[in-house]
């Protein structure tokens, strides 16, 4: 058909997904018919036009202060998270599956947390090794025997998903402490609505604006019983935290005060905030401060960010915290490997979204496989965060591999290994045109009485060519994520 013949100035004319699964074009086995109209509209845009609009968007993000802080030697600098204007699109069918998988996962993680702070059945039944749980640095003895409303510990969960070469979504990591990034999800959408209304028109994109209201509802539901209109606050480490913009964003969306530790005080095991008219009681706290810094009396005594005595008020049931204290043991890298078994143990189901294939080196079989396939695998220490101490087998030198082997043999329990996942790509605007860049996806689940999943989530994109690293600290950016409404009859 000559009518669909690409024109020379067609934006996607020379696009080559380079053998990876593509979020707009699909994979070798399956095309992506749901994105056909979007591809067509994109193709019709001139490069100069889309480029100009992209620059407008970047300027607006900067002027609105939708930024995160980067610390240089001299001072703190506001940076915007690079925003790519070409959206990532998820079909209704794909989303139905993901949503169910995320609900299943958060349900199992909450059952696990309830269990390990009470009966410890899962340990007694030998499903997960005791030292991984009770010996975990993030296990909080202060939580033992404490009942939390609805048995919900992880009120806000961010699940990092990647999509492999066959187009299968897999869980790479759980974030069950203080996951961040949701503000960009909503702000990216607002930006697209301002800059590309023509691209979005009539597509049936599921709205995401109600995140703040869902969050407020969950945080209100867990307030101490008998309080009809709880006073909710958002507790932030302060304006020098790199995620401060998100704290502002959420406080505004929830319509609650954004407080810092110094604004709160505990008297007689009740939490109060300092107002112009004296102390006002606080019932529920969405806290963006990690366990360690929450209460210098209970945890890190050097913390100046926290509120002395808040843990005791929490234990007495006088104040609610979201997330609960002690959730870090559930999103630990070592515990992660056991989540599929956890799901089976508590729910009697297979995990709807599989983990990335993981070899547990504390288990003989896993160690043997890892040692045999070292050059193909990614070896990760379990105790470290933020990509430290990782060996990327396919990219490592002989010496590095030998070093890794020695470490593995010396302390196998400290390691897991995974195959290198060929992350899916999405068309992305670059200086020289539209090119494939690797992406991941972090959906957010909010749980009070029940679980609600924000349609879509944060799509992070590696803005540099040929890299899988999507982290904002390493030049990663983000995209708007469109979950399409189900239009089938």
């Amino acid at each position, binding site marked *: 058909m000559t009518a669909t013949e690409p024109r020379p100035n067609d934006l996607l004319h020379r696009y080559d997904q380079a053998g990876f699964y593509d979020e707009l074009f699909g994979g070798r086995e399956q095309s992506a018919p749901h994105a056909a109209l979007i591809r067509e509209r994109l193709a019709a845009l001139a490069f100069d036009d889309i480029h100009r609009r992209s620059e407008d968007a970047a300027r607006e993000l900067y002027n609105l202060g939708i930024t995160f802080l980067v610390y240089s030697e001299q001072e703190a600098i506001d940076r915007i998270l690079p925003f790519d204007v070409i959206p990532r699109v998820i079909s209704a069918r794909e989303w139905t599956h993901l949503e169910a998988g995320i609900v299943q996962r958060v349900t199992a993680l909450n059952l696990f947390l309830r269990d390990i702070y009470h009966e410890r059945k899962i340990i007694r039944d030998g499903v997960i090794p005791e030292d991984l749980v009770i010996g975990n640095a993030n296990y909080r003895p202060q939580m033992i025997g404490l009942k939390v409303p609805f048995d919900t510990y992880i009120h806000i969960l961010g699940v990092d998903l990647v999509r492999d070469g066959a187009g299968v979504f897999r869980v790479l990591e759980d974030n069950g402490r203080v996951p961040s990034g949701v503000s960009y999800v909503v702000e990216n959408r607002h930006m697209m609505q301002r800059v590309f209304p023509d691209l979005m028109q009539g597509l049936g994109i599921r709205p995401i604006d109600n995140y703040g209201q869902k969050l407020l509802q969950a945080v209100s539901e867990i307030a101490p019983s008998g309080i009809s209109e709880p006073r909710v606050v958002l507790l932030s480490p302060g304006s020098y935290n790199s995620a401060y913009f998100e704290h502002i964003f959420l406080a*505004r969306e929830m319509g609650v*005060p954004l407080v810092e530790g110094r604004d709160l005080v505990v008297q007689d095991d009740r939490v109060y905030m300092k107002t*112009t*008219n004296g102390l006002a009681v606080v019932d529920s706290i969405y806290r963006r401060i990690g366990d360690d810094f929450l209460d210098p009396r209970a945890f890190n005594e050097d913390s100046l960010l926290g509120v002395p005595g808040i843990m005791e008020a929490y234990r007495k049931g006088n104040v609610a915290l979201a997330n609960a204290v002690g959730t870090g043991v559930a999103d630990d890298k070592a515990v992660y490997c056991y989540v599929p078994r956890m799901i089976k143990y508590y729910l009697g189901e297979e995990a709807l979204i599989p983990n990335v294939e993981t070899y547990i080196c504390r288990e003989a079989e896993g160690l043997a496989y890892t040692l045999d396939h070292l050059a193909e695998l990614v070896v990760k220490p379990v105790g470290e965060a933020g990509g430290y101490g990782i060996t990327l087998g396919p990219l490592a030198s002989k010496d590095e591999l030998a070093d890794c082997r020695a470490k593995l043999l010396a302390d196998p329990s400290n390691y897991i290994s995974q195959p290198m996942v060929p992350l899916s790509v999405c068309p992305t605007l670059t200086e020289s045109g539209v090119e494939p860049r690797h992406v991941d996806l972090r959906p957010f689940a909010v749980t009070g009485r029940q679980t609600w999943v924000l349609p879509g989530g944060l799509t992070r994109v590696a803005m540099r060519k040929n890299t899988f690293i999507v982290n904002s600290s390493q030049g990663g950016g983000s995209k708007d994520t469109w979950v399409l409404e189900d239009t089938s009859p």
Partner: protein
Amino acid sequence: MNNLLARYAESIFWMARYMERAENLARILDVHETFSRDDHGFKNWHTIVKLNGDDQRFFERYDIASAENVLRFYVLDAQNPTSIVFAVRAARENARTLRPWISTEMWAQINVLYNKVQALEVKDIALPNLTHLCNEIKEACQTHSGITEGTFYRDEGWYFYRLGKFIERADQTTRLLDIGYFTITGSTPTTRPSQDFIHWHALLRSVAGYHAFRRVYPRGMAPTAIAGFILYNESFPRSVALCAREINGVLTRLKSRYKLRGGSAAMERIDEILAALSSRTIERVIEDGLHEYLDWLQLRLSDVTSELSHSFFGLASSEETQQQGA
């Protein structure tokens, strides 16, 4: 009753003050032609430094009071708490704290102004560009006022905003009058009345008061009348009397509408100011010493701020003391 977080109240107060301060600094520098003249009518940039009482801090950082150094000190010097860059940055830091509270439009405008001011270079303060720059800053501050008036939710926070604005404005008006009056009248009576006329005109223009003054005093340009107008006129938006009355009204409303327990001491201080303003004629004030009178007003305004801090913002420290004592 949903009371305002003490720290927010404080930040709102100071955001308003710093924006008002930036505007007034721009106003002062814009009329540099007048205020940089010494007793003998020569251009002398040191006069501005001297009259601002910034001698010590200035000469710690600069050798000579050249035009460039003085302008650099008052516009670009981020270390100088009386510079435009400092005021805008402080306003923006407070606004940053207040982002959950203020309108997005307020934040975006302050942020844009901040980015602009941060990017200023020495060439921007060159004399031919100075008026343009001062106008831009003045207009940005006025835009801020307009956006605030049109978008800031009228709860308790609004009243703290107005407190900050009017306390700063009253203070700046006393300083501007001080600088202007003594630059023009000098220590010796001037022998060039026509030159004086230009200076008085400039002083009134710097407070946007020339036309209003003319409506009250169609003829002449008597120093006494001008000083009296700037201090006492009940309708002139930058007069000390009008600002003091606004402050008083806001404090009253905070108590009646929001049932705030604190604030009585601040009201007493402002009553003293109002009493002083109504009890002496301008002739008498000048006779007794205008400079001393203006100093006294500045100190009383600073007392009002201390009382506000103590009653409304200082909860943090007093609570902690209580805690330790208990």
